[in-house]
């Protein structure tokens, strides 16, 4: 990466390389046969195939949503290959047997699995394209009853759990992309924390889109039983491609009584070049159901990549006294478009939610916060606080705020505030006075601006996120 010396805004995508591993790719196009093929390849039970086919029927009847504040060329769903798996002849028993090419890829990404696992105490369920190839620390977790594996594995080993929970938070007909995902999802993570167990380490998974033109349809399902606690990390990087890639993931979280789920994301997929060519389309449905009393679901996200980000991690606060949280930093540069925010649906009594959203836009980008706070008539004593701040860098970009607030209970209290600002000349001057150059000053100001959110991130991610922001925005001010 010789370009690192240059203006880092113009720097090529750091993680842009393609690992040459033979892929088992399904022919392009989507129809019932494709779905049957995926199902057969993955050796799935009948009920799951029916689930997929039902979702596909729904999807056919649905229309692509147009309400968001993003512009892109119409996606040709028939030009996408819906299944791609790295070819592996036999099941792998240890890390030594993993394709060395694959391991080198992760090293380039800065994810030395063993090291990370040993030093940071993190079990990494590595998703390479669509099939999980290596899982560490599984035994250790299994000892205390935690199930952490790929969802295709869970379908075989714990079919009753998958059947019971899959599609209960995000129904198959929920929205256009969720329906598509339900029909063609290939893999993802499954996590089950039994009653009373506090997960001793942060669970983490790396998603990576590798084979060109293969849209990725991840499916994540996390269940925390009564009194269980889990923190889950998701990190994303993808190689550089010129054709746009579609990513339509679905994440479902279920928290029972007194359970606590924390879901953190750092997303740094390829955002296209400085002219807006290429990049990932990231259309994700993430939703958590705080089902039990006193349960808590917390979303933290740092969105820096993707040509288009379109996601609204939501909390359905069904249990009394349940808590929903959303902390987000969204950074857009060049021609990136982000339309992101959250939904807090208050149903139970005395439910509380907090929304902190920080948007930073630079270049020609568009950054929108779109959020919904709904207080149902049953949500007596509900409380919401929302804060959305935008920072604009340059006069070609835009920052928008679309908060929807719907209140049907008079004992609820809802507050929303938003502000928009820029990095002031006087702030830069103050730094200059103390001998701190513009670049560094901007980096410090931005990190201060995002502090509320970074504080919510697990340690490793907080460091990564801070670096990522600096990298994304350097050179765009001054």
């Amino acid at each position, binding site marked *: 990466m010789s370009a690192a010396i240059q203006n880092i805004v113009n720097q090529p995508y750091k993680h842009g390389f393609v690992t040459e591993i033979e892929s088992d790719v399904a022919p392009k196009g989507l129809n019932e046969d494709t779905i049957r093929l995926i199902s057969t390849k993955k050796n799935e039970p009948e009920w799951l195939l029916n689930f997929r086919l039902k979702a596909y029927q729904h999807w056919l009847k649905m229309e692509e949503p147009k*309400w968001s504040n993003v512009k892109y060329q119409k996606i040709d769903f028939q030009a996408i290959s819906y299944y791609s798996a790295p070819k592996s002849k036999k099941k792998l028993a240890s890390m030594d047997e993993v394709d060395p090419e694959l391991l080198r890829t992760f090293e380039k990404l800065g994810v030395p699995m063993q090291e990370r696992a040993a030093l940071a105490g993190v079990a990494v369920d590595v998703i390479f394209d669509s099939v999980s190839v290596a899982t560490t620390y599984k035994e250790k977790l299994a000892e205390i009853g935690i199930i952490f594996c790929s969802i295709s594995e869970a379908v075989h080993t714990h079919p009753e759990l998958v059947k019971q929970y899959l599609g209960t938070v995000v129904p198959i007909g929920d929205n256009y992309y969720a329906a598509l995902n339900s029909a063609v999802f290939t893999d993802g993570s499954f996590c089950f924390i039994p009653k009373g167990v506090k997960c001793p380490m942060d669970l983490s998974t790396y998603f990576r889109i590798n084979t060109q033109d293969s849209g990725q349809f991840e499916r994540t399902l996390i269940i925390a039983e009564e009194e269980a606690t889990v923190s889950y990390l998701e990190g994303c990087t993808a190689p550089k491609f010129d054709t746009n890639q579609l990513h339509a993931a679905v994440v479902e979280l279920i928290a029972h009584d007194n359970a606590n789920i924390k879901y953190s994301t750092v997303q740094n997929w390829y955002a296209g070049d400085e002219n807006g060519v290429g990049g990932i389309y990231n259309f994700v449905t993430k939703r958590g159901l705080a089902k039990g009393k006193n349960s808590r679901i917390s979303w933290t996200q740092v969105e820096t990549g993707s040509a288009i980000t379109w996601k609204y991690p939501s909390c359905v606060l069904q249990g009394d006294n349940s808590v929903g949280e959303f902390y987000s930093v969204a950074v857009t540069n060049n021609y990136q478009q982000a339309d992101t925010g959250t939904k807090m649906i208050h149903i139970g009594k005395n439910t509380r939610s907090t929304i902190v959203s920080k948007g930073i836009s630079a270049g020609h980008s568009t950054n929108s916060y779109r959020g919904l706070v709904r*207080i149902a*008539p049953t949500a007596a004593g509900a409380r919401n606080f929302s804060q959305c701040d*935008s920072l*604009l*860098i*340059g*006069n*070609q*970009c*835009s*920052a*928008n*705020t*679309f*908060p*929807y*607030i*719907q*209140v*049907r*209970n*008079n*004992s*609820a*209290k*809802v*507050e*929303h*505030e*938003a*502000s*928009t*600002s*820029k990095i002031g000349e006087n702030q830069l001057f103050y730094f200059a006075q103390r001998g701190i150059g513009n670049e560094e000053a901007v980096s410090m100001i931005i990190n201060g601006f995002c502090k509320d959110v970074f504080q919510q991130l697990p340690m490793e991610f907080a460091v990564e996120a801070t670096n990522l922001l600096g990298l994304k925005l350097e050179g765009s001010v001054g």
Partner: protein
Amino acid sequence: MSVVTGDSYLKSLLQGQSQLSASPLERLNRLRANAVDRVSALRMPTIRDEEWRFTDISPLTKLSFQPIRIVSPLQVSDVEHFYLAESVTRLVFVDGVYAPHLSTQLSDISKDSSVVVSNLSAATSEDLATIEPHLGHHTEFQDNVFAALNTAFLHEGAFIIVPRNISVEMPVHLLFIATQKEVASYPRCLLIAGSGSTVTVLEDYVSLQEETYVTNTVAEIVLADNAIVNHIRIQRDSNQAFHIANCAVSLARASRYQSISVALGARISRYNLNVLLADEGAECTVDGLALISNRQLADTHTCIDHTKPHCTSRQLHKCIVDDAAHAVFNGKIMVRPDAQFTDSSQSNRNLLLTSKARVDTKPQLEIFADDVKCAHGATVGQLDNEEIFYLKSRGLSEITARNLLTYAFGAEIIDRIPIASLKFQLEQTVLEQTQKS
């Protein structure tokens, strides 16, 4: 009353439109014809349209309303209590038709004033020349079926021309009285404030009886450089009525627009206010209060469009929602790429008095310039227990404390009205409506 839906419903509303006499103003005839075309092309909005998501106007489409045929013979004594003590200039429209015997024109008081306050169909050719570039120019009706309907029936209406550097001391009172049921009236107002002029206008919608009728109004307000306009709008229609209003305001360099709108009446009311800050240094203050109860719905949509640098906007919109009423607020602030140094703030505060009351609010910012100061906030809640406790500790009963706080919540907006007698009247109304025992 016939039950119709869809396009045929709109066509039924257009009955009688063709009988309007042609205007001497060619542009006006063209405008009407265009509007008729648009009405035929458009459909009634439903809750599937984003702009009407929370306001279901289907009850309106179940009833067919026609413009008035026989004008109610009103005497001064019937409507006198609506008159303002301060105002000597008054235009009165009864069910959308100009009532000269109830109005007092400026010319009755002083012959030499160059200010024109008159009915559109009585405009002189000199006035027409001034009106022509503005009438129908600021209210876009391509996608707005209600504005298109109003324009199709554009015939009579209030127009006010304030020439350069003239300051009109007394407020101008535009009084729209509804008297009959199942009538559609299409009031129209045009205010042209010349450069450096100052004027206060009260747009006042009242009814004599609790009837079902439709008021569909369009107001256009144009401010030239350095002009100052105070615009007060009081909607106290019958609780059975439908009130749909569109108001477009255009501000030139360093002009100042201050508006207060109060919605008290109507079963379903909708107010669209579009303020265009078209040149540098323009300022606007847009305040609103909706005080509703029973099954009323009050919907306010505002759009403040900053297109040039150094403009300022301030907005405070409050809703007091009682019983099973429903308040909707959608406040958009747009900052265009050129509009650097914009200073804009918006606040929406809602008070829910019962468990059935409902609020849908969407304060919205769209910003395309970087050196701006923009903030907005929205709150929904009930009276603060600590405030109630404070008043109780001073010897007030729980109910008195609640009433006082509710009243004070609304009074913040009423206090900003610059016309003393109207302020007093509204204070009484708010006091009555917020008293519970």
